[in-house]
């Protein structure tokens, strides 16, 4: 009964405080629950993305002695199988063509027999480049090696000495060739990584008629996409299906599980997404809880007095505890429900889904967990302090508004310093050398996470907040300096001493508000900087993948029409065209990609960054290449393998443009290259295009890197360039906008924009709350003080100096702490989450627009809070006078 009466009084008299505390709880619950929405959507996206990227889900290989037809029948009977098509693989001893009086020969290769409807059942695997996509077709590399075109005859060498002439009907590109030519059942790393260079595709019947010796029979399978939404669960599901099939076929066939492999990789990214939430979201929830505590604490003095009155009137400690419990229940339930509702709305707004999990149980767990955090926040903010006061408060103690300074125990014990040291140590231990935060070993269901690494940034964040608290407290203890500051910056004039004294004696309250604001700003700053860095690196990844805004490419070794570069340069929307000579080159026994560039122009045109190279800046290395055209940039792996020192001669075998024969060209090692537009992630070589052209019978530029003119989007420029290039040229045109949608891992495919929007919005609300609400409630709690000062004859400017000084200290402390802390935490986050970035960033990206906006918001809310408090102090309510 007492609880309800108390509650009624709160609703009537202290509505602001009640709503403020419930809003804080709602913020904590809402942020956590909506992060659940992000994880759910991110996981679904990753599963979908991983599945969509796989063209052939399974390659089921019949084992010797097993009837391939039986395997096919078993697969067709499986309801989860949508398409199953037999594909035969055979070996060829070599291929040969004769054209223009010269004969071109290749080494051993692979013959593939497939049914005519393969392209319809598995679209995208075989992409026509010239001529027909069916019949006898050559892979593009093979066609380049043989100088063959549709209509030419290729002689296929057969095991046992025979050969068969076949008329080439087309040239095709084989997508995902690595898995298409995989050795099914081989342990990871035990089979060749690169697909074969020499490949002829033909109808199944043609291959059968060749009598090409041992034939490997596979069934290519596409599965239904009714997968669990969590990549880890989908991986277990698909892998289980594959193992189940193998068991059903009694070892008669092995499954090359391409879909399982893609989902396996997505598991890792999915965990990264969860860790992102932990690292970016938990501080936000913690700030919301601290804000709740601060709002509740702003009424502590008044509450203490009220409880003391109840105690004096005979209320027992347990009756007072029930009062606190009733208030806590109302705040927790109200705030929790409000938070979940807000999270549902925020989830739909930011991610397009209000669900808190990928399954009903995970959604309930996540929402329940968030609600429990709200309960915890309420217990810590309302119940525990009220219970403590109920047990200890007396009327005399309740009168105390200011106590002699006593350092909070966390600072007395130096916990801030310990946290900083521990955070630094964890960060150092986990980030030195090469480490992986998340490890999802291929073929193993379990995922390993170095959760310990997460402690680094979290400990640092907490340590910075507490250390900031200490610093602000310490600063407020410097009387002479404080008097000077308030005289100069708060317009205190002759009141500088009492204003400074007042601040000094409230140093604990004020420094708490400053530290809270600092932590909130640090959260906003670090989240914004992390997200901006992530976006920057996705863009870098897209540029590296596509090469430029728009890229025109023909197969390696097939030069684009020399006149084409000029025509592309003249196309509408084109800013600059940079020709790159992309070939394959033998470095020792390794076949690597070679990029011939113009060192004078390639840096600006290809947006090369210093982090892409080692041994000098990218400009200095290109200058070296311009001075010494025989300079070559190679991979670190090549440097290690060949024990290279700068200036060492490197003899590479490059195919001559005229004869097609491999010629040895001497280069000089000049530096290490780690990234280059369109280059693979493993080894490659960058050289001077003029030098390689002179040594190999002339230039063969087969990539045009096109920069868009100002105001033109890459997709518009691509359309413009496509109209110039034409469909019959054999060259393909790709653009950056499309690359952004397909680059990298499934994690980069997850739209962090929603998470960014959500977290940055929460950061804005929290910062406004920390700056405005906490100040305003603090001022409101001390309105009696301001009434006294006003009654003593204070003018507007004089009252303002008391308010402004406090606001100034909170604002300055918060902004400095938020800026420094945010920078440190963002840098540590980027380092800890290196695995998220591809390539790793060379520097932190700071979204100054958001940062300035956040700062402005905090300044504005501080000014508004101060103005409202001033306005109230200048017109005290009659009740305030009666309290004097």
């Amino acid at each position, binding site marked *: 009964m007492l609880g309800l009466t108390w509650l009624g009084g709160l609703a*009537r008299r202290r509505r602001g405080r009640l709503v403020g505390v419930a809003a804080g709880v709602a913020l904590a619950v809402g942020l956590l629950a909506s992060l659940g929405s992000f994880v759910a959507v991110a996981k679904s996206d990753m599963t979908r993305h991983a599945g969509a990227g796989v063209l052939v889900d399974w390659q089921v290989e019949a084992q010797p002695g097993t009837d391939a037809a039986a395997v096919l029948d078993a697969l067709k009977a499986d309801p989860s199988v949508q398409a199953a098509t037999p594909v035969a693989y055979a070996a060829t001893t070599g291929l040969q063509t004769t054209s223009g009086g010269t004969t071109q020969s290749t080494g051993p290769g692979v013959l593939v027999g497939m049914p005519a409807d393969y392209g319809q059942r598995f679209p995208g695997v075989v992409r026509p480049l010239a001529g027909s996509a069916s019949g006898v077709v050559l892979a593009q590399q093979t066609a380049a090696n043989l100088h063959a075109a549709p209509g030419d005859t290729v002689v296929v060498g057969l095991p046992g000495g025979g050969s068969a002439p076949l008329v080439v009907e087309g040239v095709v590109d084989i997508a995902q060739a690595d898995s298409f030519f995989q050795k099914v059942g081989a342990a990871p790393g035990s089979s060749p990584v690169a697909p074969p260079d020499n490949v002829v595709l033909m109808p199944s019947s043609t291959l059968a008629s060749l009598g090409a010796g041992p034939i490997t029979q596979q069934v290519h399978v596409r599965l239904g996409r009714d997968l669990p939404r969590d990549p880890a669960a989908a991986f277990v599901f698909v892998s289980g299906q594959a193992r189940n099939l193998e068991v059903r076929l009694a070892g008669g066939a092995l499954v090359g599980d391409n879909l399982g492999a893609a989902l396996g990789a997505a598991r890792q990214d999915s965990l990264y997404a969860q860790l992102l939430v932990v690292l970016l979201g938990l501080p936000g929830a913690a700030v919301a809880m601290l804000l709740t505590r601060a709002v509740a604490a702003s009424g502590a003095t008044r509450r203490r007095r009220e409880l003391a009155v109840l105690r004096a009137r005979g209320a027992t400690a347990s009756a007072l505890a029930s009062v606190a419990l009733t208030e806590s229940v109302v705040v927790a339930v109200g705030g929790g429900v409000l938070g979940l509702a807000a999270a549902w709305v925020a989830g739909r707004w930011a991610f397009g889904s209000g669900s808190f999990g990928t399954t009903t149980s995970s959604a309930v767990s996540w929402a329940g967990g968030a609600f429990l955090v709200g309960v915890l926040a309420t217990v810590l903010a309302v119940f525990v302090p009220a219970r403590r006061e109920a047990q200890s408060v007396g009327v005399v103690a309740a*009168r*105390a*508004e*200011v*106590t*002699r300074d006593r350092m909070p125990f966390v600072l007395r014990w130096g916990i801030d310093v310990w946290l900083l040291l521990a955070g630094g140590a964890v960060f150092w231990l986990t980030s030195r050398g090469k480490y992986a935060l998340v490890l999802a070993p291929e073929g193993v269901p379990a995922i390993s996470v170095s959760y310990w690494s997460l402690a680094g940034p979290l400990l640092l964040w907490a340590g910075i907040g507490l250390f900031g608290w200490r610093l602000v407290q310490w600063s407020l203890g410097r009387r002479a300096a404080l008097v000077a500051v308030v005289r100069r910056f708060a317009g205190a*004039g*002759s*009141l*500088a*001493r*009492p204003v400074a*004294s*007042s601040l000094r*004696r*409230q140093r604990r309250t004020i420094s708490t508000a400053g530290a809270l604001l600092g932590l909130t700003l640090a959260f906003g700053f670090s989240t914004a900087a992390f997200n901006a860095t992530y976006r920057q690196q996705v863009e870098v990844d897209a540029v590296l993948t596509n090469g430029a805004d728009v890229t025109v490419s023909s197969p390696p070794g097939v030069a684009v029409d020399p006149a084409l570069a000029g025509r592309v340069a003249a196309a509408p929307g084109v800013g600059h065209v940079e020709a790159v000579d992309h070939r394959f080159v033998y470095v020792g026994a390794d076949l690597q990609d070679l990029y011939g560039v113009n060192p004078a122009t390639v840096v600006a045109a290809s947006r090369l960054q210093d982090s892409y190279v080692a041994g000098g800046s990218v400009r200095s290395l290109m200058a070296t290449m311009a001075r010494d055209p025989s300079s070559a940039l190679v991979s670190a792996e090549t440097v290690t393998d060949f024990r290279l020192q700068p200036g060492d001669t490197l003899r590479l075998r490059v195919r001559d443009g005229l004869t097609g024969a491999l010629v040895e060209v001497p280069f000089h090692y000049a530096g290490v290259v780690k990234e280059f537009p369109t280059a693979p992630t493993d080894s490659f070589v960058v050289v001077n295009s003029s030098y390689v052209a002179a040594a190999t019978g002339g230039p063969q530029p087969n990539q045009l890197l096109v920069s868009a003119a100002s105001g033109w989007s890459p997709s518009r420029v691509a359309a413009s360039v496509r109209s110039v290039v034409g469909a019959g040229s054999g060259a393909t045109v790709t653009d950056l906008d499309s690359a952004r949608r397909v680059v990298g891992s499934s994690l980069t495919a997850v739209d962090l924009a929603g998470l960014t929007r959500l977290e940055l919005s929460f950061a804005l609300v929290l910062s406004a709350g920390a700056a405005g609400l906490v100040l305003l409630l603090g001022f409101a709690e001390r309105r009696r*003080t301001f009434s*006294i*000062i006003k*009654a*003593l*004859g*204070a*003018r507007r400017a*004089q009252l303002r100096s008391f308010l402004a000084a406090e606001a100034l200290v909170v604002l300055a402390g918060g902004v400095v702490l938020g800026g420094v802390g945010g920078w440190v935490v963002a840098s540590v986050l980027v380092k800890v989450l290196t695995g998220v970035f591809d390539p790793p960033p060379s520097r932190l990206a700071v979204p100054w627009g958001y940062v300035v906006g956040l700062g402005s918001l905090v300044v504005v809310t501080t000014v508004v809070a101060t103005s409202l408090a001033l306005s109230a102090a200048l017109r*005290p309510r*009659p009740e305030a*006078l*009666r*309290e*004097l």
Partner: protein
Amino acid sequence: MNIVVAKGLSRVFTGDGGEVVALREATCSLASGDKVALLGRSGSGKSTLLHLLAGLDQPTAGDVSWPALGAAMAWPAGVVATVFQGASLVPTLTAVENVSLPLLLREDDEDGAEASAVAALAALGLDAIGGHLPDELSGGQSQRVAIARALAGGPRLLLADEPTGQLDAVAGASVVDALLRAADASGGALLVTTHDERVAARFPTRWTMEDGGLRCSA
């Protein structure tokens, strides 16, 4: 010359329980040298009248003016001083800082203001507690510090709301002595509200307040 003149003052408060008439059509004036005790029971409207005469509140009806002081907004701090019924010290300032506050509000020299505050406290026998915070003072000490603060500014109009309400007889008597001495020294007007006949008996003029109505003669 009259320091304050009130004509037909009424004050009505509106709250959850409806309207409360705290003061009805009060008319009175105080001139330099006047020393008045305003007697009345708790809730009779004494504090409301005092707040209106101090310019801290606005009447619902009627008019109040300060012929010798000018418009309320133009007074230097401390010219009209009020000693409130409850603890009215700024909790974050020491006794000396509280007493010097009105002097600093009228932009006196900082060191001079502090010296005056120390002297004012000493005059009331409070020199030992100058560095104490209000929470470290007893009720009587707080009240005497508030009186010292009111006196430090050399007020022309000194209004004290139940200044002896929280004090024992001896302490109360010394506070009344101090108020009367201060009024003599400044030549201003003094109005003290009280429900204690013994306190009222020490003043040459007595007004009474009953249910919001004022009678300006005993």
